[in-house]
């Protein structure tokens, strides 16, 4: 092969420039900006700003609404992970056993994955609106459901809205995981164990561990960051601020409340959370849960 030799030592920068520019403008600059915001206090009308040290952090840690959002985000990601994981697994196991029309099931179950969170939120709106919402009235008849006023009911609303689409993602990965299990291993277990349920918990489920851990991370990340559109199109944090995720709160405080300092500090806290999740993933999951 002929080697291409560039005469000028600058031409490589020329080719790299577009990519670097995109990274600089859309990634590094906002990060720097965030750090700057986090450590300054700006007056709401943009007339002046001054270096504030850790004041913004002190502020969010003394702000009860930050704890509310933190608590909600933790509960939300836990519940979403549990619900989407278990329903996704159940559907995948069922679809994997179907003999006829397997592809129809698969296609139908994968579709929601392709829908944008905001659209999911708008659709959920129809089901939960006070005026004509199907589920609103069903639940309302059952136990006086009213998410406009009751925190627990609002949780139910955003959990259902947030889970629906993510079930598809769980389904796809679990199905792929199931299909990656050697057929003869399952057959050997059929000879060794009569009970389907016992076989599932002693053979199939342990062999799905790598997929399960991967999905736990994916689901937590989803609940933390990708549910913004859903919250914004459903409860908008209602009843009070109880259904605001950390991301949503940072956005509201920064762009609606114009408190860029607090929003910056909150963003940095989230960066730390992502860092912890990532370290956890690399340390404990990537390394340990592979069998072959």
């Amino acid at each position: 092969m002929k080697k291409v030799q560039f005469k000028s030592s600058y031409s490589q920068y020329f080719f790299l420039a577009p990519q670097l520019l995109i990274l600089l403008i859309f990634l590094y600059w906002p990060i720097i900006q965030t750090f700057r915001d986090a450590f300054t206090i700006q007056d709401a009308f943009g007339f002046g700003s001054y270096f504030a040290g850790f004041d913004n952090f002190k502020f969010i840690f003394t702000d009860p609404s930050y704890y509310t959002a933190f608590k909600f985000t933790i509960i939300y990601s836990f519940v979403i992970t549990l619900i989407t994981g278990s329903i996704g697994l159940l559907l995948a196991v069922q679809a994997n056993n179907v003999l006829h029309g397997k592809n129809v099931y698969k296609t139908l179950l994968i579709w929601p994955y392709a829908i944008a969170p905001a659209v999911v939120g708008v659709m959920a709106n129809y089901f939960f609106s006070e005026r004509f919402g199907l589920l609103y009235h069903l639940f309302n008849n059952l136990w006086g459901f009213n998410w406009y006023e009751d925190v627990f009911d609002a949780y139910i609303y955003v959990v259902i809205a947030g889970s629906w689409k993510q079930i598809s993602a769980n389904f796809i990965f679990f199905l792929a995981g199931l299909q990656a299990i050697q057929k003869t291993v399952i057959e050997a277990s059929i000879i060794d164990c009569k009970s389907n349920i016992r076989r599932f918990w002693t053979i199939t489920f342990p062999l799905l561990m790598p997929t399960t851990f991967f999905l736990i991370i994916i689901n937590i990340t989803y609940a933390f960051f990708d549910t913004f559109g859903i919250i914004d199109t459903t409860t908008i944090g209602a009843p009070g601020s109880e259904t605001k995720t950390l991301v949503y709160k940072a956005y509201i405080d920064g762009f609606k409340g114009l408190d860029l300092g607090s929003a910056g500090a909150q963003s940095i806290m989230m960066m730390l959370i992502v860092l912890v999740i990532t370290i956890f993933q690399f340390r404990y999951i990537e390394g340990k849960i592979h069998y072959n």
Partner: protein
Amino acid sequence: MSFLELKNITKIYPNGTKAVDETSLNVEDGEFVVFVGPSGCGKSTLLRMIAGLEDITGGEISLDGVIINNIDPSERDVAMVFQNYALYPHMTVFNNMAYGLKNRGISKDKINSKVNDAAKLLEIDQLLDRKPSMLSGGQRQRVAMGRAIVRNPKIFLFDEPLSNLDAKLRNQMRLEIKKLQRQMDVTSIFVTHDQTEAMTLGDRIVVINDGIVEQVGTPKEIYSNPNTKFVAEFIGSPQMNLFDCSIKNGIAKIGEAQVNLDNLININDASIGIRPDDIQITDSGKFESKANLVEYLGSDMIIYSSIGGQDFSCKLSSKIDVKAGDNFKFDITPSSIHVFDNNTNKKV
């Protein structure tokens, strides 16, 4: 009544493939039976129906006097060894062997002693704490065997368990399986496409072709008296020479050459089969041919030649001095010739 009876077993897969066609077979208690046949002939399908891993489309299977068609695989009292071993990757060797026992509610002490005994027998007692991914192919093979042994099944089912091993290990394991089977005296069915394995392992061999049993018999019967052209060609290495010919009054004409048979038959369209080692090279030989190619195998050698436009090979001691390009004379004993009718492909 035999220990294992297959009555008119048929298997048609959902996609319409007929993998096994009206197969009947009796296996006696303690017998070692080998299913042999080319790839795709339905050996595994038949074995898997006995194990219960495949539905039976038609016919009846009974084991130890009980019809097992509708009995759950775990309750048929069979143990299977798979080609790729199918060990549980997340369990230690000990747990791999103990799993089936635990599920049957056997006490811990009994499981311990059974697993340890089997492990000693198979010389894997040092490996009990390892996961399968930390074992060599041969060791995995032994664990798979161990998993079958601890269960004390009525019947062992082997689906090409040796084909993932290298040649040397394969021979060694082959001997060990045979020895174990003798020692434990458990009825066994062994599937292979390798005719050497079949000949050396089996008390009886079942030759299967295209879903149909071609012949059942001891290795000796099958080798010396093949019923069909297929069996004749499939069993024996190098494979039997088959010459298309017409037979008049007990004389087969292969081109110009005339071969005397030992009975006076007439068939227009026939094949005569002669094993490569039934051809004797002598200077007084009736036939003469040119050696196209000579393969030296140490004590033996194989000469490739042709007569009447049809290729054949002969196997003989390498002490005889024939080189490629030489002419040689040979004789054929009439009693060693197998005659097949080409219309039915059956022995005459």
